[in-house]
């Protein structure tokens, strides 16, 4: 198909879709409406379970099964990237050349790294109280490690990041989430039921029953998964080289 024909097709299909979407938008309840039956129920339930952050309650208690799926998607995608970005038979590794960085940038990276790491852990730990949680904090913590690459060089990053350990931790924390779910079945309630632990005092770190545990499992899983993911991409971008003389023709 020529680009011109494709453009016509896009205009036709996109036009139809646009008409459909706009017509639907005009029929939607007005923005800012007061009617949210599920949301209101979720808020009541969250307070009944002493979880101050309702979103965490929905994520890790009321709809914890969705989060299990979400975590597995991340886990599967990271596994997929590990498989897809493996070293192919016709490739070899070249040690990366060291990178020259001006001192202020290097200093900044080394100062901010621990700050970001602590912030990440803080965001994870307070997930069931204030905005944040395992996912957000995990990403921050994992990103912070890569300041080592950005501010120093790749070799420095590799020293603080034994990828295998992260891979194993990633899988173990994913299993931990699933095992916490299974514990519900084994104790005779339901899968992922939040009945194992007392709900604690409202607005404290240990409130919400299993919510903090699931939250922590997600935090560790996400942090490790992102580290592994970035490690694969860095490997490709920095280390893995194709064999000389075997460059594909096109």
């Amino acid at each position, binding site marked *: 198909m020529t680009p011109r024909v494709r453009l016509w097709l896009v205009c036709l299909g*996109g036009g139809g879709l646009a008409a459909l979407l706009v017509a639907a938008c005009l029929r939607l309840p007005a923005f800012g409406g007061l009617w949210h039956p*599920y949301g209101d129920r979720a808020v009541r339930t969250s307070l009944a379970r002493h979880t101050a952050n309702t979103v965490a309650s929905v994520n890790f208690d009321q709809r914890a099964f969705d989060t299990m799926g979400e975590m597995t998607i991340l886990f599967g995608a990271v596994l997929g990237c590990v498989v897809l*970005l493996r070293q192919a038979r016709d490739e070899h590794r070249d040690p990366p050349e060291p990178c020259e960085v001006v001192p202020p940038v290097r200093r900044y990276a080394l100062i901010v790294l621990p700050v970001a790491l602590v912030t990440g852990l803080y965001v994870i730990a307070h997930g069931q109280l204030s905005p944040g949680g395992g996912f957000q904090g995990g990403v921050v913590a994992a990103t912070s490690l890569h300041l080592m690459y950005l501010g120093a060089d790749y070799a420095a990053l590799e020293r603080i990041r034994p990828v295998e350990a992260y891979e194993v931790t990633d899988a173990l924390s994913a299993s931990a989430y699933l095992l916490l779910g299974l514990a519900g079945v084994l104790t005779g309630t339901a899968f992922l039921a939040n009945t194992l632990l007392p709900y604690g005092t409202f607005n404290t770190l240990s409130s919400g029953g299993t919510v903090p545990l699931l939250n922590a499992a997600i935090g560790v899983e996400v942090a490790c998964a992102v580290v592994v993911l970035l490690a694969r*991409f860095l490997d490709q971008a920095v280390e893995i080289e194709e064999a000389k003389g075997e460059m594909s023709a*096109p």
Partner: protein
Amino acid sequence: MSSVLHVLPYLVAAWGFLAGCYGLATSRNLIHAVGCLAGCQSATYILLLAVGYRDGGTAPVFSDIRPGSRPVVDPVVQALTLTDIVVGATVTALLLALTVQIAKRHGTVDPDELRELRG
């Protein structure tokens, strides 16, 4: 003002979605196409959150306000959007991984030049 605002967020979401689709269909670079897909997905975040907004509401997080003291917005859509963002990031990563491999095996990331799977 207000009657426009009643549909504006939905229309912005629809616009973002369509723009992303257009970019995806006409892209000349697979990395760009993946970026467009991410744009498409941000439209779904906007739509979900716009659906859950409540006038005068605040975040359903009670660490710094007393429960019941202020109206709150819908927490369910926020949880859905969170899940959605994770999904989006991972899909982006996977697509980029495939793109990197395509660049290696085909020597190009221009879909117009990738013509092996015809007919």
